[in-house]
């Protein structure tokens, strides 16, 4: 099955792209997707920061099980405000 992954900020720069579609096994968790992406994009790893996970624009835990066409974002430390 396929999910959409969006990269922002430092991860967008490291991946060299803002959005991809990724084929994963049914039952994969968001943490497993991240491990797979680190293999695809060598510059993503090692990640020297704490990431949060968002699926369909809501924060989820690492063991969240992905569904077909989910929109997944790995959220680097936020720094909005001023």
């Amino acid at each position: 099955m396929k999910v959409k992954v969006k990269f922002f900020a430092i991860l967008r720069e490291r991946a060299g792209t803002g959005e991809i579609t990724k084929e994963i096994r049914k039952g994969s968790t968001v943490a497993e997707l991240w491990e797979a992406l680190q293999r695809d994009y060598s510059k993503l790893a090692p990640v020297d920061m704490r990431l949060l996970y968002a699926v369909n624009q809501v924060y989820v835990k690492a063991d969240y099980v992905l569904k077909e066409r989910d929109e997944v974002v790995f959220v680097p430390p936020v720094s909005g405000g001023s």
Partner: protein
Amino acid sequence: MFRVTREAIDLQGLVDFVTDPEAGAIVTFIGTTRNNNEGRKVIALDYEAYPEMAEKELARLGEEAKKRWDIRRMAIVHRIGPVRITESSVIIAVSAAHRADAFEACRFAIEEIKKSVPIWKKELFEGGEVWIGTQSGQPLPGR
């Protein structure tokens, strides 16, 4: 009104939006780009957002503030793209019958934005740039 925008933020527009005949107080917070940070000479801050989620998070935070304080209306607009020295990156406006609620809800909003809203800033300084919050030791060299 909870929005992410590429335009300069209109302070008076936000204050007009939260103006309410039941309100005796309006508090606003304006975040501005400062010319220095941790000893670096800052040129601009370049903000990036996950816009759909950022707007949802801002609205969620507004709902949370309404539960905690007796406020009338709230508006938050965050700018993305480059924000130069003295320009506004974020404006929060809150109205309430009484000033204590307006102050506390406004302070809460800016503290929460810095924790949970998917917006990131890259600092452009003399000699380089760095994504704030991701520094592992030294800032990255300029490219």
